[in-house]
């Protein structure tokens, strides 16, 4: 047997680690570096914690966090709706193959296109409100995008509608790979639909639900820029749909202070790390419990 020195395996992975360090590590270091400077062009004067202080003193930062938290709550309907529709399709309701294609359509259309279409539909005098008025529901014809107290929920609804398509297909794929004998056996034992779902299907979907939950959380924290930029318009009205992503963009490109944009990015990065640590600990605990 050939004995390898302890360092040898590390030498094999070194090129890839170096590449990753360059691709991810260098920008990360630069972002942290920028967050302590007043950047003009590519560099700037050191300003200590001024950028961080400016962020915490800015009321729009609080607004952005509040809106991100509202959107985060959307992960619950996102998962539930995906799950219910996937199970309904799995039960092979009439026309399920057509429905499967239809529900996935929004996901393959680019967000800006979906955004433009939805923006037109939900304008105050757009097709949605015109329909409501036509059927006598004048009171339900709200200013979905123009009222700052409502707009964030309109955006949330749009995100859930589009993003649930991915969840449906994900869950359906897993469901189609289930051992049908188990479900057949439950049928024969007299289990009803709810009992089959609760005791047979859901336990087997646990892994993929966890995965989709994480994907959903990441989407709602860090991938909603296009929605709030296009649909209500630049996080409006009056910052009513401002989220952290757009807030960072504004500081970097509109307000031309990349140092502050970097400080917010560092804060968001730290918060995400905390989330990930909590999540991994929970999963490790659950795995240990399962082994006992």
């Amino acid at each position, binding site marked *: 047997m050939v004995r390898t020195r302890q360092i040898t395996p590390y030498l094999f992975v070194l090129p890839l680690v170096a590449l990753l360090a360059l691709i991810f590590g260098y920008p990360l270091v630069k972002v942290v570096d920028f967050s302590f400077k007043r950047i*003009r*062009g590519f560099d700037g004067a050191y300003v200590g914690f001024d950028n961080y202080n400016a962020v915490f003193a800015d009321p729009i930062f609080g607004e952005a966090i509040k809106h991100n938290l509202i959107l985060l709550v959307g992960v619950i309907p996102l998962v539930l709706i995906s799950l219910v529709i996937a199970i309904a399709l799995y039960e092979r309701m009439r026309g399920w193959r057509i429905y499967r294609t239809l529900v996935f359509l929004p996901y393959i259309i680019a967000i800006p296109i979906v955004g433009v279409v939805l923006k037109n539909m939900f304008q105050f005098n757009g097709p949605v409100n015109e329909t409501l008025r036509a059927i006598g529901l004048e009171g339900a014809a709200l200013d979905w995008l123009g009222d700052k107290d409502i707009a964030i929920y309109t955006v949330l609804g749009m995100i859930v509608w589009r993003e649930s398509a991915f969840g449906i297909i994900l869950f359906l794929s897993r469901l189609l790979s289930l051992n049908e004998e188990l479900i057949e056996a439950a049928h024969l034992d007299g289990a009803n639909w709810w009992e089959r779902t609760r005791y047979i299907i859901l336990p087997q979907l646990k892994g993929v639900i966890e995965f989709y939950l994480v994907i959903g959380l990441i989407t709602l924290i860090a991938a909603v820029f296009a929605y709030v930029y296009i649909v209500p*318009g630049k996080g409006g009205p009056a910052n009513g749909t401002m989220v952290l992503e757009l807030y960072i963009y504004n500081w970097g490109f509109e307000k031309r202070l990349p140092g502050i944009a970097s400080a917010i990015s560092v804060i968001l990065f730290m918060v995400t790390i905390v989330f990930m640590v909590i999540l991994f600990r929970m999963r490790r605990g659950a795995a240990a419990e399962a082994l006992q």
Partner: protein
Amino acid sequence: MTKKTRFSPMSRRSFLKGMGAVGAGLGAGLGSTLPAFAKSARLQDTANLSLWWWADDLTFGGWIEDTIAAYEAANPGVNIESLQQDVCCVISQFTTAAAAGEPPDIAFLFNGLYHMENVWLGYLDPVNNYIPLEIIEQSNATALSRYQGNYYRVGWYPVPLVWEYNKDVWDQAGLDADNPPATWDEWMAALETLKTAGFTPFGGGLSDGFWGEWYLGNALTQALDSPGEAVELFIGDRDFREPKYWEFWTKLEEMARGGYLNDDMLSVDLFTAINKVVTGELAATQNVGAVIPSHIAQIGDRVGLMTMPVYGQGALAGVPITDSQGWGIPTATENKEIAADFITFMQTPERLNRFWEMNHYFPANRTWDSSVIDDPVIQLMWDKWVAGNITVYIPNLMPGLFWTDAMFVSAQEIVAGNMTGEQAGEQNAQVAQQWRDLNPDLIENYRIYAQSLAEAENATLEATEEA
């Protein structure tokens, strides 16, 4: 992005030799009566250049391609590649590329601070280093392109800020469409008449913010005696809390509270809304000149144009406002002389006429022969907003932070009925203070810029008085 030259790059010496030869030829053969821009120098050397552009009307891109083709034909060996940019990124892309030392050779630049902050970073060269002052001034780049005696842009096409109305709608409401209101009281009375007749009197789309920017440009100007006063508001020498500086917001508030604005204003974007003036869904709106030809194409001379009715006491109240898009030469480009020659070529009479032929819109150059204008509405725009006594577009002096956090928010909150004009003034003052706190290093540059603007304004006044 500066392209590597395919052949040997032209040296300054060979350029000067070429220019010298052309100059000698001109002097000996043609005398001094030939206009300075009669024919740009035929360049002997070869180079690849890049040109980044954007336009309010993207069909203007056809003229750019046409001009490049004409220039390349006249200068074999010179190759210019154009790249259309997105409006969101015109400035940020340029700043990033310039910081990386890879800017385009010829850059489209918005006016005012949008390019001036790049001047302060050292990313733009004075165009008067390469192009005769006479051509720059004729090009109408406006005073906002000047800093400490240097010009940093050459004008391309003007952007008049107009209030547009549908004459058919006004006729139906019983208003005199040929004599639009000149004062605020007359305006409010006209709005009431239109509303009573069942029309949506005025409005636009505020979801993307630009209508608010235009409103601020039209309305705040009326409180000012010079454009430099606007800069002083941002650097703290003046205060948005003074009633004269928030009165303009109360005018928007008056229109909102009177029910004269379209009810979907907060949920639609600028162009979706302002195009409704053509169909009569809106009786009047704010607009910019470059869009007017497309409206004329639909309703002809039923397009009515006016300046914002006067409410303010400033010297600029009632003066037509015109912005100008333009071109600059980045410091890092290796092809400054050829870039300058190309920009000069853009100002030749043949190219200016071609701009009109292709777009049915006029260039910014004041020496352009406007006798070819065959449309009364466009003629009115030319006479009043280009050739006449005009002032600059002050939102070009507005820091980005003020745009996003003050103008955008105040306009939307006022239209929604959540904020008064006075509260908007307070909010604007707070945001201006926040901008000063975060940009102490820029204050001095802004102050010098304000002085440059005052000097330019004085020079214009003197010239007007002399005329």
